[in-house]
């Protein structure tokens, strides 16, 4: 079981994955960056990004995915996303209130509008993507080690 998963799945799955994984990642980035003008947002975008890496990992085995995004980077992104979100909240104190939307609102329907909302989306998606992928890796690795015994 363990070896089979290190190698990944069959060649058909690998080919389809190679074609689709970039699209899924791009879709995730689209969803998160347009969270304030269309349905979606940081959370859904972050989960989709995490899913694209999970997809890669299921098809190619864990080494291939971890080579592209090592686990130190994961924990860094997670902590960084959290700190960034908290920092945005604290920067509101410059305007006098916790969580104040202190940036200019911009023009509706444009990508760069709505003040802090796109920034918050990016922070959340970093955190969610890294965090959920870390959960997945932790649970999958646990399973492999458990079965080796």
């Amino acid at each position: 079981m363990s070896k089979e998963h290190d190698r990944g799945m069959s060649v058909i799955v690998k080919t389809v994955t190679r074609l689709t994984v970039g699209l899924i990642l791009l879709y995730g980035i689209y969803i998160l960056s347009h969270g304030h003008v269309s349905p979606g947002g940081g959370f859904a975008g972050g989960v989709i990004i995490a899913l694209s890496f999970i997809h890669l990992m299921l098809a190619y085995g864990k080494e291939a995915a971890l080579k592209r995004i090592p686990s130190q980077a994961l924990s860094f992104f997670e902590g960084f996303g959290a700190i960034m979100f908290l920092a945005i909240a604290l920067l509101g104190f410059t305007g006098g209130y916790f969580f104040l939307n202190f940036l200019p609102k911009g023009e509706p329907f444009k990508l760069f509008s709505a003040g802090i909302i796109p920034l918050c989306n990016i922070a959340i998606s970093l955190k969610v993507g890294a965090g959920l992928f870390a959960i997945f890796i932790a649970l999958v690795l646990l399973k492999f080690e458990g079965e080796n015994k």
Partner: protein
Amino acid sequence: MTHTLYILCLALFCIGLYCILRKRNIIKIIIGVIISEYAVNLLFILVAYRMQGRSPIYSPDAAIENMVDALPQAVVLTSIVIGLATTALLIAIAMRIYEKYKTFDITKINELRG
């Protein structure tokens, strides 16, 4: 009759509750928790629906009126994430339990009395 949908939704909640109370398998208990969470989230969106309503998103070309209630949607987004976090932790505990006891059956995992 205006509340039949709410009752159906509560019935879904009760199926999850029954599963948690009666099933003796850890994965089944987690499934019960997931179903109950679904039912509560659905109820929150149901109470926000407005007849012939539109999604709460403005579009550049048409004037929108009669949008559905947006607050429950925002709240349910948060509550889905809370459900995901709880479920992930429950599954992690369940997998560690499986590793230690080699079973998901809670009648066999019974070291504590209380």
